[in-house]
């Protein structure tokens, strides 16, 4: 029995309140028909007896108290899934917008997903060679990891993401079982176009699923975009056994959409006005990366977020860092000096790195070398701050050596071309070459055996 509920009780931001509704279930999707013939979709977010609160994805513009008819669909928000989805362009709510017609679903899945049982997870240990020295050597990306890029407006995070997609060599992935799910949330049209063009140029476009919620698209739809994207990714990885790389940009816009929704619902705000459940909400996205026992496929996430005012303690990067397995932090001053990719090495980290590198994966000296590079570069920063006070001339000879090492490290190791694909061996050897400019006694994180083998000073 389908009942149309005529009119609404209350409109507040993107929320409408309808009274007298029977048989509704929590999180159910409703169809809203306006009397001008257009339809919208909404989701039940709160129930109080027969009074329900509905979040309208396309916004409430033009809705009045009397001009709508609402119908319950009887199911929660679902994404249509089929192998044909690869290569398609979808809107922020997972509906095709490339003019190629509807997706005929093999399967429909609730976009909220269900948590992976920790017992069923496979601990990720397969190294992904990105061909970027800083990432491969110092914050290695692992298959099944979630490793965000912390950036700021105007920095080259998009180029970096594109370069990673183009160069990534995943163990076990071939032409046929590798694909990219790209979710754009609140990005400008030309940024989305840049990604599309880059994917096309590097020949991966036929392996990409794009979900586009542009900056002028409805904000509430934005809260669905990553969920649809990850539902697609999980389907590709765990039903079709593919290796999926998920790029989500920009998580900051997503969190802001969530804040807007929360405040219109009248919820008690937490830090900086973001809802108290921001952590759980972000976790419900990021935790959908990984690998599962008995399945070939994997979901690797690279979320991109622009830190407001480059502030890493802002709630969005802060909470993200607590959930993800490390982060790649970009630095404005490095970019200002013309270095690309402007990866700020010290605050960057990959938590899964230690078990995916070394003997049998990359090379036995990888971890000690990385430790030593971190430690030595941290000394460079100390030396620089001292030089800023007393002048470079007054530095002790050893500090001067560090200054030189720092310079070399940035121009040769951090800096590399947008098209330059460095093999891991090449990156590691370069690391040793740079360390060899320092006196051997300064290298206290490496044991003598390795020094004998690699130290050339």
């Amino acid at each position, binding site marked *: 029995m389908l009942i149309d509920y005529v009119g609404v009780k209350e409109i507040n931001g993107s929320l409408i309140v309808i009274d007298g509704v029977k*048989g509704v*279930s*929590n*999180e*159910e999707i409703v169809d809203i028909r306006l009397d001008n013939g257009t339809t919208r979709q909404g989701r039940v977010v*709160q*129930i*109080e*007896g027969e009074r329900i609160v509905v979040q309208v994805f396309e916004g409430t513009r033009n809705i009045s108290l009397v001009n709508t008819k609402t119908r319950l669909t009887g199911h929660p928000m679902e994404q249509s899934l089929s192998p044909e989805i690869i290569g398609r362009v979808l809107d922020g709510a997972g509906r095709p917008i490339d003019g190629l017609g509807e997706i005929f679903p093999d399967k429909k899945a609730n976009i*909220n*997903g*269900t*948590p*992976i*049982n*920790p*017992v*069923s*997870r496979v*601990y990720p240990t397969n190294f992904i060679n990105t061909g970027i020295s800083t990432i491969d050597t110092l914050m290695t990306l692992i298959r*099944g990891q979630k490793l965000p890029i912390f950036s700021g407006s105007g920095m080259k995070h998009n180029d970096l993401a594109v370069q990673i997609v183009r160069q990534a060599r995943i163990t076990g992935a071939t032409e046929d079982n590798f694909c990219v799910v790209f979710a754009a949330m609140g990005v400008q049209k030309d940024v989305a176009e840049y990604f599309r063009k880059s994917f096309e140029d590097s020949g991966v476009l036929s392996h990409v699923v794009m979900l586009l919620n542009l900056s002028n698209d409805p904000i509430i739809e934005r809260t669905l975009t990553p969920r649809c994207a990850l539902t697609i990714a999980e389907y590709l990885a*765990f039903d079709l056994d593919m290796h999926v790389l998920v790029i989500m940009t920009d998580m900051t816009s997503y969190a802001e959409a969530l804040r807007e929704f929360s405040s219109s619902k009248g*919820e*008690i705000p937490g*830090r900086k006005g973001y809802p*108290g*459940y921001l*952590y*759980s909400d972000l*976790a*419900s996205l990021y*935790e*959908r990366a*990984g690998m*599962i026992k008995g399945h070939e496929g994997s979901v690797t996430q690279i979320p991109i977020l622009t830190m407001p005012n480059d502030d890493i*303690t*802002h709630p969005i990067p*802060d909470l993200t*860092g*607590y*959930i993800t*397995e490390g982060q790649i932090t970009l630095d404005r001053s490095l970019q200002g000096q013309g270095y690309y990719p402007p990866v700020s090495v*010290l*605050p960057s980290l990959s938590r*899964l790195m*230690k078990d995916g590198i070394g003997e049998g994966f990359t090379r036995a000296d990888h971890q000690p070398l990385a*430790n030593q590079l971190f*430690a030595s570069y*941290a*000394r460079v920063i100390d030396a620089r*701050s*001292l030089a800023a*006070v*007393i002048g470079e001339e*007054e*530095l*002790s000879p050893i500090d001067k050596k560090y200054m030189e090492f720092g310079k070399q490290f940035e121009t040769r190791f951090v800096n590399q071309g947008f098209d330059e694909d460095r093999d891991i061996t090449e990156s590691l050897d370069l690391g040793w070459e740079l360390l060899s400019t320092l006196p051997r*006694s300064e290298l206290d*994180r490496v*044991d003598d055996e390795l020094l004998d083998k690699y130290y050339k000073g």
Partner: protein
Amino acid sequence: MNNNVIFGINGPVITVKGPTDFKMMEMVHVGRENLVGEIIGVTDEYTTIQVYEETTGLRPGDPVTGTGNPMNVLLGPGILDNIFDGIERPLKAIEEENGAFINRGSQVNALDETKEWDVTLKVKEGDIVKGGQIYATLPETQIIEHRLMVPPLLSGEVVEVKPDGEYKLFDTIVKIKDEYGTEHSLTLCQQWPIRTSRPITQRLSTSVPLITGQRVIDTMFPIAKGGAAAIPGGFGTGKTMTQHQLAKWCDADIIVYVGCGERGNEMSQVLDEFSQLIDPKSDRPMTDRTVLIANTSNMPVAAREASIYTGITLAEYYRDMGYDVAIMADSTSRWAEALREISGRLEEMPAEEGFPAYLPSRLAEFYERAGRVETLSGDNGSVSIIGAVSPQGSDFSEPVTQNTKRFTRCFWALDKALAYARHYPAINWMNSYSEYFNDIDPWFNEQLGEEFVEYRTRISALLQEENKLMEIVKLIGSDVLPDDQKLVIETAKVIRVGFLQQNAFHKDDTFVPLEKQMNMMKVILKLYDRSKDVVAQEIPISKLIALGLFDKLTKMKYDIPNDKPEMFDAYIEEIDKKIDEILY
């Protein structure tokens, strides 16, 4: 009676209209799928319930049924070597039933009821038993004997005893008659409400340290068995790493590891690592003495709130058997956030940063369940709590860190700058503290001689002095310092890199026995004392450094195996010899 139905739904919080006969904190089943929930508010108009599972698809009008009991956990053999979610559902069994994703309403018993245990009875007919008394034992794993105890609130006369043999979880093995003549059957398991601490005879003083094999902890900021410690630190500073190290190496009998709102991949790492890791004391996999509680960040938030209590209740149960238990809670901030989230849904008046005003009292309730005690059966046992705190924006002035500080006596502050330089464990020696010195120093004096405490005091004084000198160095460089101060800086560098920093992936350095820790301090201080002689002779310090002794000591943690303490004597001789050479 059974006409309680759902009225309102808001996230994980649902309401039932009208007066009900539910009790506060009673466990209920919600909806057709029997989701687990708990009563958190009762008025004559509404009853409020928090649901421990996803509420998508629940409808008004769906039934709510009470169980009559508060949130319970089942206590019995089979807890060890197992992994549970926040409300003690076994994740391995759920996997077998549902596959890789966790569905709702899983009705799986917490413990395996089909497995037969080899039970030895410890009572006979006619015995008078009281609460907490051990009535039977069984080998739960190869290293841990499980002791079945009379439920704490029960006592009476044994009227029936089964012979020794194989029994299943719910088999009755003993019957007792209480003072009112009612008969009670004792099986291999019992229930206990998670929010109530289990009774004890009395608290004992915390006079024995929990040895962790981590130098910065054992030497500088030790924790007592039965103590509570907090590890605060921003992301990437190594909270989880430190927790893992402690879980692997600390000398507790039983480890309860609560992954509260943390990463799924991390939990699978713990599972992998612990089952491969062999406990040096017993030659058995670490999992034989470990229970894991995994409520990852994407699992329902209300169960995250409960997971901490589930963990501590399991810990207390093993404490009552007379074991030393350590519980790692990673992270208590996620738990506090779960409190905040639920409090927000209830539209309670927020206090600081949106956290509910009862945050401090909840934290206190949790940390107060740590302690070294005399159990009801007259044994000694302890629960030590090590709670990680994830301060927002790495700012230690936020409410969870500040309140935790009030209820723990050990504070291991993790430092971003140290972590950036990959100095692990990144415990900052200036901000951290331990208040257990007075309690456990007598133990150190007895076991290792009085030197241990003396060395520690001197090492810590050197670090303090270095910190002061570094202020100057940061402004004008180290060249202008007089040689005796340069010596302090050089020595402190050896302490920092050679002693405080510890490599968790090195076979010897991952766990260092107390004796080696003491010898390392001894050698470092020896070098410092002898170097002072050199400086006093106005011999330039560069000549001293050229001897290579400082570098050698920095690497002694790797060069001297844990089982070769005699090698330290050679180091002392070498120091004397080389320094004598430049002196005379």
